[in-house]
């Protein structure tokens, strides 16, 4: 057992003890280390001004893997075993890095407040495409740049100059972060610490990172601890004073929590598998789910956030849920008496109410890969296409036989206190011919099964209309007329 968090910051080793371990990473950088290049704007993961790079140890690799995260909604204790690189750590000695140079030359910075965040996110993009996962390009293309910078807001430039800067970077001139920073000593230290559990107690705060689910369950039961996955939800709640967990249990050092695998047509997702890992994995297994994950939050959020966190957070607009519902996924719960499984369709009993006992935790999500004969379609409607929480979500799994709908599962989000299946609509569609009239008629039934509310994102009337129209979208998506191929 150790009583400190170990991480590296811009190449330098840090052991953090006591209260400081509970600070947000952004506060720690700015106020404890004087690294004020990292800015705080929203403190809720939605602007990217606090973006920093985080290098993680991967099994059987002698280098770290870097990705960007939001420093405002992560905590020092969650950085254990990583290398954090801030904007201050990106210059090549005195010279600007090629990314920084390109941003200067292309007017990528106006007021400059968003700039360190953009520089970090762009460095991630370059480091990834030039080194971690090279595709033989000399320069980034516009699509990569836009996708890679979705988590960063700029109010001054209109983004065009930043895109131009991204395109101007010569990947060959970039020194990968691994080459620059990953010494054998750093790697050995980080690795060594992964097998030593952590317990930090300071004031009324208590942090525990055990090596197994069993120890976590024992601690949770004894201390009424809150499980922290990567805190993309919890960090916001804490920053906005909506919650103040004092006893914290992290599964970060539990090896099986990081496991993501497929066997016998079932995908198993451990409690610490990130949405980014999942997105990549799903491209080969369930491409439609991967497509949905593409417009889930931002790279920064997905590099940290977990599927299990999304499920446990139990929001009725959690984007992964309609899929998990229609895929008949199972939640594996681990408690003092071992494991049990609950079909996700029965997991939510009310608004933020779960069929999970206080002493249990979620150890895995099990997702059966849909039968190839089934069509899977997932929809997310939001006020802004990218980096936005959904107004309405829908998942459909259906099978057509001889132009008749032989099987159908429908789940909607954003229309009630939990994500819902629509049994009446499903029953209506069962056996019906696959044509526009069928789906028009189904719309009226779908409306009757839901009771959305008006809130800051949309009115109930809009959600009712979407509940109806999404069935038409489903129809058109599966039976595209020639015009639909254009521009969509």
């Amino acid at each position, binding site marked *: 057992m150790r009583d400190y968090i170990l991480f590296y910051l811009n190449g330098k080793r840090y052991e953090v003890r006591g209260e400081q371990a509970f600070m947000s990473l952004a506060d720690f950088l700015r106020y404890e280390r004087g690294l004020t290049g990292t800015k705080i704007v929203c403190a809720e993961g*939605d602007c990217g001004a606090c973006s920093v790079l985080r290098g993680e140890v991967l099994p059987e690799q002698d280098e770290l893997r870097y990705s960007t995260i939001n420093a405002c909604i992560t905590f020092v204790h969650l950085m254990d075993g990583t290398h954090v690189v801030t904007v201050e750590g990106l210059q090549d000695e005195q010279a600007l890095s090629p990314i920084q140079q390109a941003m200067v030359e292309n007017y990528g910075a106006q007021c*400059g407040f*968003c700039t360190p965040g953009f520089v970090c996110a762009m460095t991630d993009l370059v480091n990834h495409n030039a080194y971690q996962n090279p595709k033989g390009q000399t320069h980034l293309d516009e699509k990569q740049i836009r996708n890679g910078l979705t988590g960063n807001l700029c*109010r001054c430039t209109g983004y065009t100059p930043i895109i131009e800067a991204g395109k101007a970077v010569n990947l060959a001139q970039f020194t990968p972060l691994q080459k620059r920073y990953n010494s054998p000593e750093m790697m050995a230290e980080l690795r060594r610490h992964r097998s030593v559990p952590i317990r930090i107690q300071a004031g009324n705060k208590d942090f525990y990172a055990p090596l197994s689910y069993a120890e976590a369950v024992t601690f949770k039961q004894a201390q009424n601890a809150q499980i922290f996955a990567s805190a993309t939800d919890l960090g916001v709640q804490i920053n906005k004073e909506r919650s103040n967990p004092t006893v914290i249990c992290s599964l970060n050092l539990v090896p099986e929590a990081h496991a993501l695998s497929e066997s016998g047509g079932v995908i198993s997702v451990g409690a610490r598998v990130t949405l980014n890992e999942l997105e990549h994995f799903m491209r080969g297994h369930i491409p439609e789910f991967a497509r949905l994950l593409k417009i889930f939050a931002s790279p920064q959020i997905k590099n940290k956030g977990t599927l299990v966190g999304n499920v446990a957070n139990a929001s009725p607009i959690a984007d992964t849920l309609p899929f998990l519902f229609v895929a008949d996924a199972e939640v594996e719960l681990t408690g003092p008496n071992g494991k049990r499984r609950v079909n996700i369709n029965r997991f939510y009993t009310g608004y933020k109410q779960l069929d999970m006992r206080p002493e249990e935790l979620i150890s895995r999500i099990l997702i059966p890969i849909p039968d190839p004969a089934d069509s899977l379609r997932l929809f997310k409607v939001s006020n*802004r296409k990218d980096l936005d929480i959904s107004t309405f979500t829908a998942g459909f799994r259906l099978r057509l036989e001889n132009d008749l709908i032989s099987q159908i599962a429908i789940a909607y989000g954003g229309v009630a206190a939990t994500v819902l299946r629509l049994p009446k609509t499903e029953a209506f569609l069962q056996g019906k011919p696959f044509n526009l009239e069928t789906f028009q008629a189904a719309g009226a039934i779908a409306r009757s099964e839901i009771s959305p509310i008006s809130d800051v994102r949309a009115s109930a009337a*809009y959600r009712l209309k979407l509940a109806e129209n999404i069935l038409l979208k489903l129809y058109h998506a599966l039976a595209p007329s020639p015009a639909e191929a254009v521009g969509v």
Partner: protein
Amino acid sequence: MKTKSLPHDSARGHVTGESVFLDDRPLQRGELHVGLVFSPVAHGKILSVDTSAALALSGVAGVFTAADLHHNLWGTIIQDQPLLADKTVNFWGEAIAIVAAENRATLAAAKKLVKVEIEALPAILSIDEARAQEAFIAVERTILKGDPDTALAQSPHRLDGVFENKGQDHFYLESHISIVYPLENDQLEVHASSQHPTEVQHLVSEALGLRQSQVTCIVKRMGGGFGGKESQAATFSAYAALVAHKLKRPARLALSKDEDMQTTGKRHPFKDWYSVGFDTEGRIQALDVKLFADGGAYADLSTSILERAMLHSDNAYHLPNARIVGRICRTHNTPHTAFRGFGGPQGVAMIENVLEEIAIYLGKDALDVRRINCYQGEEQTTPYGQVVVNNTLPALFDRLSETANYAQRRTEIQAFNASSQTHLRGLALTAVKFGISFTSRFLNQGNALVNIHRDGTIQVSTGATEMGQGVNTKLQQLVAEAFAIPYQNVTLLPTATDKNHNTSPTAASSGSDINGAAVVLACAQLQQRLKACLLAHWAQPVRGALEELSITGQEDTSQILFQDGYLVHKDNPEQRMAFAEAVNLAFFNRISLSGYGHFKTPIPGYDRDAGKGHPFLYYTNGVAACEVLIDRLTGELKILRSDVLMDLGRPINEGIDRGQVTGAFVQGLGWVTTENLVYSDTGALLSHSPTTYKIPNIQDTPREFHLELLENEEPSNVRGSKAVGEPPLLLGFAAWAAVKNALSSTHAHYNPPLRLPATAEVILSCLK
């Protein structure tokens, strides 16, 4: 974007994280964290404010209320707003008390311990309610041209309608912040994130009862301003200054993004009622419009903003007869304030919508209607009587419709819309003619200080504040060019009221114009002295310790030029002296190496009582075309392509100007599409953070974006350039017009009741 122009003077610091923003300053010994207690209701009577529990908390240094202020009323134009509410509260988020604590955690706890008892009163939350109750700010204003009543009656066609736009949050990334250091003899050093350091200085001194000469306000940079830090920034400095002055300790007040959005003013919502008469070609004969602005609870800058809205109700279009009436509604919303465009966007949106509706009514292409209405030649006058000269509008329309391939795309879109069951496309080409100058004449002045040091390097300061727009870089360039020295040898100093006083806000797009012209004047003095000194030296160098060169300032020095770091005789290039050497020559002969320039814009001005005059030095013009794609089933919107063409004179720094255009344009797109301010029934802003308030993301920048600048030297302005900060924002309206165009395409003459912003929900509700 290929350009050889000078990079932004802070770019290096920005990309390395070295640039210091206010909250990046290290805490000083004893520095206090300051926060505010805000009204939790939109309108109410304050029954009591009990600070005792907060004061009792360990780590709380002080709690202050209205009674602690020397003078508790402010307002840039009309003094009608208390700094701290004492009897009533008039908007949700109005400040009631100031709390100062040793650390941030204590501050957060102490704010909750201040007990405010309020009896809620009925609140006016909309323009309609304010009109019904006749709750207004200031007087009604009118601009009248010709005889609109007769012309309307005689027009072949007439349309009556209502146009409504919502507000917009500035969403500068750096929220309001101020740090105040108490100095000796009750002096204060105020560091503000403000576009108007002089107003900060004046408000702080007035609120605390200090002499203006005891207060210095310094602005190094802002993390964005966009008008939101023009007037309202001063109040936050006053709060921090009160703490610093009373407790004699440094004090830092930094709002969170949520607090900033909840409690500060926005772009003004407007609701306009109009009648327009036109002929069968769509040529406007008369416009009769009443503009109502939601001013919020206090006057702030609303009178000037309404004035600019009225002065832009013609936009690029000639109105032979017009009556433009404006009124400010007093509501219980946040006092609305300056925002890039300053009323211009609201006026322009109104008339552009009218043109779109005329086209729908006549079944014509809106571009044709715009083109025949746009100002022609050099003699047509605006409703307020200014002649539109150096008129590039027809040329801009013609060129953009060519380069954007308007006609062909129109045909393609019609075919697409006829066949698609799931999507609609729309296209629109709109314009901007933006008047440059403050409409209050006295603001059109600026001063500059240019100090040459002994090594030949120069420090420059003006009243212009740097908020990312690159004004410092332009000034740096002007000075470097004046003396033909490397730009690295010119440093722009933080804006400070002890160097440049009685300055105007950096606003109205005029920062570079006014301050640039003042810098040029200051440089001219120095050029004259250095050249005269050199001529005297060449004529007869001093001999012996007691001789000295002397100059009158009236010498003809035209034979000397500044070239490549030298002062050179124009007829004899061999005869020359390095700049630094000439500087030392002047120094040893006791000639001043400091230039002070004062500039006033040569304009007659505007008589607001008469609604007539010549308020603007010139116009910045532009046009934009936007093509949009709408999902017919969800209302979701995508901007497929944008083409922007602007007349920016001869830019001082093209790279910076292009960045202003792309930035302002996308900000305009945000206003008209996704940026949705949602309030509760009781007047609290619900969309107060980026989670729910959606400014454009990098994915929202049009996938295809063409930007061209038309070179057209502006004879009246500094170095032939034109102001750029605000005008392109108004071109974002093209996206809204394209949405309207798309929606109207489903049925002949269908005029969709589209509001602004055109959110997905609003769009879906307009689909017929």
